[in-house]
């Protein structure tokens, strides 16, 4: 089987979620990559170096500059003439593009794949991860999105993919990019961090989040996260949100501080290797999944922990 993996990038580097998608695709067959964008030579070279990659299709065109699905889906559908499976990371970009490709191909997509069980059989979460479905496609071609935390990341070196330019591409003329507000952080990204420190509603304010959560994260070189309740209360921006409606994470260590552990939050972090919970309510559901639970007032315990760790 020949697979085509969507390379998610920021214009200069390949994003980590792509590497998990490469691993998933390699379980199906030969791995080809698609790098689309404007001025993407550097990305294409980096992509060619990913271990196990056979060919890198590079579509360099102004129309592909901002991942507009109206322009990109026809390009992918075209390339799928010579591939059997389209595999995209289940990021907001992947989720935006893949179903549009699937419908153009008249294929029913399989979303958020957790494991590859056979050539056409996969597991995926339903009901916010409260159930796992094993599903089998009957379509001639496959379109998949892959949950990044469910697969090992492919090595970024050792590959020698052949770069091939794709000349196709035009602007469908029905959509344009206006602008973006992307939070700049001098710390690891949530979805690839080894340690995450998350704060919840119990913090009470944005100031307390800065005062209590940030120093611990700084000391551990950790990413910052938050529960939906903390985001909705305005303590931190939305992109901090871990959970079913936010980011799905699986770090080595996850600190849940002042987070009660609503189902929607657990769905986003329960695959973390070690979960540490600090909460003054000993009946908080978070303690049912925590490896280490500390029943304490976070306003004294967390600064103490920060000082001693």
């Amino acid at each position: 089987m020949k697979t085509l993996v969507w390379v998610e990038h920021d214009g200069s580097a390949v994003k980590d979620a792509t590497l998990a998608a490469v691993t998933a695709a390699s379980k199906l067959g030969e791995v080809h990559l698609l790098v689309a964008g404007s001025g993407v030579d550097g990305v294409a070279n980096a992509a060619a170096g990913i271990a196990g990659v056979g060919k890198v299709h590079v579509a360099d065109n102004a129309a592909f500059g901002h991942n507009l699905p109206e322009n990109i889906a026809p390009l992918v559908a075209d390339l799928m003439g010579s591939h059997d499976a389209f595999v995209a990371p289940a990021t907001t970009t992947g989720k935006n593009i893949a179903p549009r490709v699937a419908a153009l191909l008249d294929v029913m997509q399989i979303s958020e794949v957790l494991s590859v069980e056979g050539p056409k059989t996969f597991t995926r979460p339903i009901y916010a991860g409260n159930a796992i479905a094993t599903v089998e496609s009957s379509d001639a071609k496959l379109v998949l999105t892959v949950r990044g935390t469910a697969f090992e990341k492919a090595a970024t070196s050792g590959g020698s993919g052949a770069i091939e330019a794709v000349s196709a591409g035009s602007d469908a003329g029905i959509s344009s990019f206006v602008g973006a507000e992307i939070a700049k952080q001098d710390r690891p990204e949530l979805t690839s961090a080894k340690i995450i420190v998350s704060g919840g509603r119990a913090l009470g304010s944005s100031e307390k989040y800065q005062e209590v959560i940030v120093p611990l994260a700084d000391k551990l070189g950790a990413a910052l996260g938050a529960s939906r309740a903390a985001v909705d209360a305005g303590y931190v921006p939305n992109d901090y949100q871990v959970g079913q409606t936010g980011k799905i994470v699986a770090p080595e260590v996850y600190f849940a501080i002042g987070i009660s552990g609503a189902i929607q939050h657990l769905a986003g972090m329960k695959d973390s290797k070690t979960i540490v919970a600090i909460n003054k309510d000993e009946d908080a559901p978070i303690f049912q999944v925590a490896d280490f639970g500390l029943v304490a007032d976070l306003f004294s315990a967390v600064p103490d922990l920060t000082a001693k760790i």
Partner: protein
Amino acid sequence: MKILVPVKRVLDYNVKPRVKADGTGVDLANVKMSMNPFDEIGVEEAIRLKEKGVATEIVAVSVGPAKAQETLRTALAMGADRAILVQTDDEVEPLALAKIFKAIADAEGPGLVILGKQAIDGDNNQTGQMLAALTGWAQGTFASAVNVDGDHVSVTREVDGGLETVKLKLPAIVTTDLRLNEPRYASLPNIMKAKSKPLDVKSPADYGVDTAPRVKTVKVSEPPVRSAGVKVADVDELVAKLKAMGVHS
């Protein structure tokens, strides 16, 4: 401008899903069912656009069993003008849903179709994008702000890392994210009024759509259970445990 709002009847989001013992799915017998929360946000957004004078008519559509009429009545009570139930007892996949909505869009000629970004049962997150592909319209997915301006709509999207704004030519597809708005509750008089609003019942065959599934569910199982670990007595013990794992500054 007419707005089409597809709505789905799903297990209420406050009910914990239980996997059936025979592994065929999630038990939906005798449990509370409600409108998919993301669809509710879609209905609310359509109503707000009507209140602003941008939209003139809101048509709610559902594909599902006879009981999905209740979900459509909720949309009508919130403020939709009329409803279409495409009645079927089969589970309809996003691709077939998109084909049905495409046929309805062809017949109704909406300026916008506003869908939830995903239904909280299947969590597919596909139908809106697929409908956009089939109609050839632009798509603004995971919307946190929608502004119609002449023959375009600006959609601010919740993306990994922040927000992004795109400008789309109308007609267009929008899918909602949680922060777009807070849906209203229907008032009692509006619930009464909704009972006399028009609700047409159709079938997938009326739209020439084959709803046979492309993806077979082999089995549905419980997720791996994570067991509780230990409670530590104080910060010192926690620090010791973390250091033993190699976690320190």
